[in-house]
């Protein structure tokens, strides 16, 4: 059968769009049973302490209180809350509640009660005597510090990632190609700078939340706002020390994740309450809790040495990344890898590279996964260094990149030796340049009113799924009247994969999109999928859809041939009917579906899994135009231009909004968002009042276009889009500011104060 392309590449509205825009009750809190116990967590006021005594008797007497749990009441087996494929690279360093508390906000007790008022009252009545310890707050002094964040013997690292709790190390390692020191010694120009990226909150509008119930079979049902339902099942089983068979996880509609919900931040608390009491329970994180005890981006300090000859040919890149994992190691060993492996390969032709890193524990809020996952940090450093090199060479940074950028067919030694099989980065650059009218605007224009307008550029890459690890699976069923059910294990968290995957299926099966119903994730029903992270869904689960449809078509033809009394070789399927090639007979899909419900021994059902030995990078170019007030340093983002190569955009509307949204998060990171701590280790930006995410007045104009390559290993030529889009704003805006003022801000965010200070020092 010939495959049509009717839906792939077309901007169809999402299947659930009308339910969302009319405000239907589809999110976790909307569908939670009314009789759920309210669950809240008592949190530590100290950055580092041991609980000497904890008295809950008075609190327990508050009318309506059902359960108060302390470290004495929870299983003593350590686990990780990181939603990763088992065995997780993240260390097993957690207990649900621990005697040692490791950051301001760490969990001390769990309180469950009939009403919020009762729970709030009980929280205040719990008396804790802490033995306050000295914390490790500065990540630069954490490695080999005599104060250990995790001195316990039960700490465990399952994978060889260079972790050592006796040294406060979550991971460490080095990767290299060629002799970087020798090549750098021979370079005409060497840029050597240190860059500092801060923790950022994903700040998805729906905070962390979960409700739990027991089912008639005595199993724990966890309905969670999560990106990783199958990992949640395993992690809950580990945390509660119960068989995985006892846990079922359901994912409803999700109000945004961006990586935050790739960590099991809140699920364990109601889970243990329900498991111990048998009663339904619910936790809804406040925004405050989501700001102080969650899973923000890893703070990183990156030292770059970048060498080039006098013609601007980049010869070597040496990168050392120090990453702050905070109190626990979730995603610590893996995020750091991307800081090098997804920045250095943009300059794949360089003769040598070295990428070394340490990831350390500190007594701060644990970091986690945030869109871009380390690539964002690495690209700020490497792309900024490339921009500084261009300025040093008095060369247009676009020109410098044209000379050095990775191109289709290039081998990328720093990207596990993978070849860029599909890469339109050169076309992205050319188009962005036109859109920005770069030649006219570069580097800066004095507007004559005390303000200077200037432009900056940056490139970005990411991956598409974790090669050799991630699994995407799909089950397809043919039902009566010939409609299909598509069951996926990947989590649609607003990203639209329920729709894009159905678009792929509709084109594979040559049917109407409405002929395919999609079932969201339920671990009891859906086929296994690692989850929606690492930019995997479109590429990997999309590939699983193609495979599954192929298997399905064979079964339909087999059944159809049987009904027609023909052999498989004599028939074909066109999406609507199975027909004899000689034109003599045919049977409709509808009739096959209906007939198969009687006297049939062949299930019209298919399941396939997909995994990939490669992780084809999407690429993009971003260009920023800013206006800086030369007296105050106040900077306005006027225009942001982005051109993306995500292979085939499966749904241009969804891809565009992903890009615009990712850019605006990147703009927030570049200009506004910061997580800072008091001297005692308390987060200062603990609400949306202090933590400023961009409003619609802050993002200027964002203009997005696509320059598509065709990725042969992807479904219909598709690569990923979700993460690559967040990476360019920080380096592009930093460079634009430098072009306006001469000031290079190397520590995010790029605030007027830092620019002003730099201008004062500069003059």
């Amino acid at each position: 059968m010939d495959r049509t392309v009717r839906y792939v590449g077309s901007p169809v509205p999402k299947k659930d769009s009308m339910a969302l825009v009319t405000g239907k009750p589809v999110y976790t809190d909307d569908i939670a049973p009314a009789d759920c116990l309210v669950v809240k967590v008592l949190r530590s006021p100290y950055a580092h302490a041991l609980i000497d005594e904890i008295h809950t008797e008075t609190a327990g007497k508050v009318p309506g209180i059902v359960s108060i749990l302390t470290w004495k009441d929870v299983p003593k087996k350590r686990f990780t809350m990181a939603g990763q494929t088992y065995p997780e690279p993240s260390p097993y360093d957690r207990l649900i509640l621990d005697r040692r508390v490791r950051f301001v906000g760490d969990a001390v007790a769990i309180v469950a009660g009939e009403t919020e008022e009762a729970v709030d009252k009980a929280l205040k009545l719990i008396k804790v005597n802490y033995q306050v310890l000295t914390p490790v707050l500065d990540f630069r002094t954490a490695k080999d510090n005599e104060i250990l964040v995790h001195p316990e013997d039960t700490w465990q690292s399952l994978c060889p990632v260079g972790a050592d709790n006796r040294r406060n190390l979550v991971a460490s390692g080095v990767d290299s190609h060629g002799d970087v020191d020798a090549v750098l010694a021979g370079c005409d120009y060497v840029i050597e700078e240190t860059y500092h990226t801060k923790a950022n909150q994903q700040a998805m509008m729906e905070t962390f939340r979960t409700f739990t119930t027991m089912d008639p079979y005595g199993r724990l049902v966890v309905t969670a706002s999560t990106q990783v339902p199958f990992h949640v099942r395993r992690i809950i089983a580990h945390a509660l020390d119960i068989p995985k068979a006892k846990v079922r996880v359901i994912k409803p509609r999700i109000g945004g994740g961006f990586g935050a919900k790739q960590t099991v931040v809140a699920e364990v608390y109601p889970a243990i309450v329900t498991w111990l009491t048998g009663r339904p329970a619910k936790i809804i994180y406040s925004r405050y809790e989501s700001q102080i005890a969650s899973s923000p981006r890893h703070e990183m300090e990156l030292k770059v040495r970048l060498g080039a000859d006098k013609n601007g040919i980049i010869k070597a890149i040496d990168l050392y990344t120090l990453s702050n994992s905070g109190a626990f190691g979730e995603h610590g060993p893996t995020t750091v890898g991307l800081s090098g492996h997804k920045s250095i390969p943009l300059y794949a032709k360089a003769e040598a590279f070295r990428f070394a890193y340490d990831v350390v524990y500190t007594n701060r809020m644990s970091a986690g996964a945030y869109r871009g996952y380390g690539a964002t940090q690495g690209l700020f450093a490497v792309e900024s260094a490339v921009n500084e090199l261009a300025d040093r060479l008095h060369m247009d940074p676009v020109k410098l990149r044209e000379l050095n950028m990775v191109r289709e067919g290039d081998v990328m030694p720093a990207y596990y030796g993978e070849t860029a099989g599909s890469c339109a980065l050169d076309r992205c650059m050319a188009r962005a340049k036109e859109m920005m009218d770069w030649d006219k605007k570069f580097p800066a224009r004095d507007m004559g009113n005390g303000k200077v307008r200037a432009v900056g550029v940056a490139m970005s890459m990411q991956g598409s799924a974790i090669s050799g690890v991630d699994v995407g699976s799909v089950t397809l069923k043919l039902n009566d009247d010939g409609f299909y059910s598509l069951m996926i294990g990947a989590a649609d968290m607003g990203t639209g994969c329920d729709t894009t995957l159905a678009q792929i299926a509709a084109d594979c099966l040559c049917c109407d999109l409405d002929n395919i119903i999609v079932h969201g994730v339920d671990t009891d029903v859906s086929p296994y999928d690692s989850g929606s992270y690492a930019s995997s869904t479109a590429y990997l689960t999309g590939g699983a859809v193609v495979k599954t449809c192929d298997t399905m078509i064979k079964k339909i033809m087999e059944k159809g041939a049987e009904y027609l009394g023909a052999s498989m070789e004599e028939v074909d399927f066109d999406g609507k009917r199975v027909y004899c090639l000689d034109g003599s007979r045919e049977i409709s899909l509808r009739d096959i579906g209906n007939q198969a419900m009687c006297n049939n021994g062949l299930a019209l059902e298919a399941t396939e899994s997909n995994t990939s030995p490669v992780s084809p990078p999407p690429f993009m170019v971003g260009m920023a135009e800013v206006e800086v007030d030369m007296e105050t340093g106040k900077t306005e983002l006027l225009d942001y231009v982005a051109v993306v190569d995500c292979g085939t955009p499966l749904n241009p509307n969804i891809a565009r909004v992903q890009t615009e949204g990712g850019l605006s998060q990147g703009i927030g990171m570049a200009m506004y968002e910061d997580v800072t701590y008091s001297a005692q280790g308390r987060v200062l930006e603990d609400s949306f009042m202090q933590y400023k995410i961009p409003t619609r007045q802050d993002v200027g104009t964002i203009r997005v276009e696509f320059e598509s390559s065709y990725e042969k290993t992807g479904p219909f030529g598709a690569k990923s889009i979700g993460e690559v889009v967040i990476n360019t704003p920080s380096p592009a805006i930093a460079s634009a500011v430098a072009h306006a003022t001469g000031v290079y801000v190397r520590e995010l965010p790029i605030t007027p104060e830092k620019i002003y200070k730099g201008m004062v020092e500069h003059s």
Partner: protein
Amino acid sequence: MEIQLTLNGKAVKDQVGADTLLLDFVRKHGCYSVKRGCETSNCGLCTVLLDGKPVLSCSTLAARADGCSVTTLEGVQEKAEAIGRFLAGEGAEQCGFCSPGLIMNVIAMEQELSEPSEEEIREYLAGNLCRCTGYMGQMRAIGNYLNRKGEEQNG
């Protein structure tokens, strides 16, 4: 205390605490479209109309709505569909969690401003945060919706 109000056209009488928030009150009465995104009056997700005027229900006491008329998205489903269709047409309801509050405020804006410029729209809706979309798609959708409405009215 007991309050009495009109919720989406229906008379509702209920006991509330002195500190009960309108947000919790309307959700308790089945209006699940109303969302909470913060505790500091910063996100706009909880926007409802109180006697026709947009208010943040997270920082309005239920007691204040006594004797008033409260409208949530549940009460203006036709409008929600009309505006929402444009959002959906752009893919600008990514997770959709912010959409009800946004649409409520667009409805309020329509009543307050005639033919607003893009800048006026940005200003009017500045309090409606969205973390998913970067706002551009929402702005396209709202622009298209207002244009279409203008065309229909003119002819």
